[in-house]
């Protein structure tokens, strides 16, 4: 349940597959064009229910509520051993080894 005034992310289908641009590859054309925006919820709503939000710019937008208090989870990724190896290699070539 999301409460009026909560900061939420909503989801919309902008164009169903049949209304999309004709100049698309097949693997894209079979999918709808989807949209996500964030805003303050204007009335209580269940997750998955269509509701109205007011965005940062003051726009009113309607869509299916997908997340309450959405946050970013991107990070610096897993350890990539090759990155260390590049650094070691080029330092050795440029500055010489330990000797």
């Amino acid at each position, binding site marked *: 349940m999301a409460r009026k005034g909560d900061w939420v992310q909503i989801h919309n289908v902008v164009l169903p597959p049949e209304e999309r641009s004709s100049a698309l590859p097949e693997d894209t054309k079979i999918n709808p064009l989807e949209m996500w925006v964030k805003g303050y919820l204007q009335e209580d709503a269940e997750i998955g229910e269509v509701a109205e939000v007011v965005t940062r710019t003051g726009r009113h937008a309607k869509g299916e509520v997908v997340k309450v208090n959405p946050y970013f989870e991107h990070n610096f*990724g897993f350890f*990539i051993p090759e990155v260390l190896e590049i650094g070691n290699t080029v330092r050795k070539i440029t500055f010489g080894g330990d000797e």
Partner: protein
Amino acid sequence: MDNSYDAIMARKNEIIKNAVGMDFDKFENPGIGFDYEKMMEATGYTIDEIRRVQSLFSIGNTPLIELKNLTELARKCAPEGKGARIFIKDEASNPSGSFKARRACTSVYQAKKLGYKGVVTATSGNYGAAVACCAAMAGLKCIVVQECYDSKGVGQPEIIEKARKCEALGAEVVQLTVGPELFSTVLQLLEETGYFNASLYTPFGIAGVETLGYEIAEQFRAKVGKDPDVVVCTNAGGGNLTGTARGLRKAGCKAKVIAASVNLSGLHMASDNQFNKKSFTTGHTGFGVPYTVNPDHSDVPRSAARPLRYMDRYVTVTQGSVFYITECLASLEGLEKGPAGNTSLAAAFRLAQDHDRDQCIVVQETEYTGAGKHINPQLSFARQNGIDIHFGDPKDEVPGKSIILPAHPSLIQVTDLDLDHMRKSRIKRAVGTHKDELTDEDIKFLVEETNTNEQFVRDAIASL
């Protein structure tokens, strides 16, 4: 109002006219061409005025850094006597973390001056943060529209980071799945809000980049006592190269201008399946090539980004080479930057090995780095998506299947694109079905468009 895709696109010219405060029709010539310089002058700003405006936003005057250790590494890979000095313009020092601040500033300033309440821009790149940043300074509202997710809702980490940054700077971010209909969404938002279209491709944006070229010439002369021999520009939509080259010319600098893009050949830019198989979301051939041969398919009727007019050479580098050089920049120069901006650095590293030691190459940008937008998360994301990452010879890299990190820095190569072929494509595009109606004015336009001569253009037309 009818908001179907076709209906919105049919209203495109009217919406753009209202949203840029500029009537593009008045630049059109009777035939196939238009008056590019007249359009550029229509901004009403001289380069000195733009520099003054940018200084109000604390944009520009970024450091020009000589990369002595990277030059040393290039010399170790080069034949005797070769290995030009490599310099980099640290554009990440701009307020929003990239050269795009220059491009956004003039648009935002113009929007404010004309009384618009906000700005809208379509970009998954650094430009969004730049517009958001300038809008914050100008007290304008800002909407950034991004192509961000595939149909499974998986987003490119690099793009998600830019969404975060735009939001941090006060913007509303509208995120979409893959597809060129992004532009119809932008048009709809422009219509709904009445905001200014801070398009990447208006004369305001490109005039803003001219200061970058101008500054390079000035700083280089002060620092080295001469002009650089080569300036390398990462090329996608063409605005970076166009603006920089125009600025160099305005400063009287005759440096060769070389375009560089990451090779993503074989990947379709509008493909849902391939969206997350590429490890670069900009600076690649998927934008660079089509926008070079057909600049007018952006969100304005005539694009001010016309790179074919200015490039002396167009080279590609591999994804693995760009990641590699990004790590070199951190390990050898202590500069940790975002990978996409280092596309031109990878090219410069190789080009330096063909130039004499007393020659100088300038890489004209860096970009900020952060979570998602960094060599490590981008390689990590690629590996998670089944891309084969290993050391080897970059020439064996297959975009969408492998990322080959050079086993030795001497394996970093550039591949030349056939510029004459692209010029002929440009001519074919521009001529369309009007082959038999071309006037002398049309020919003159095509000569300028392709930076060639009348004979070249007439031969190309005859072969159509």
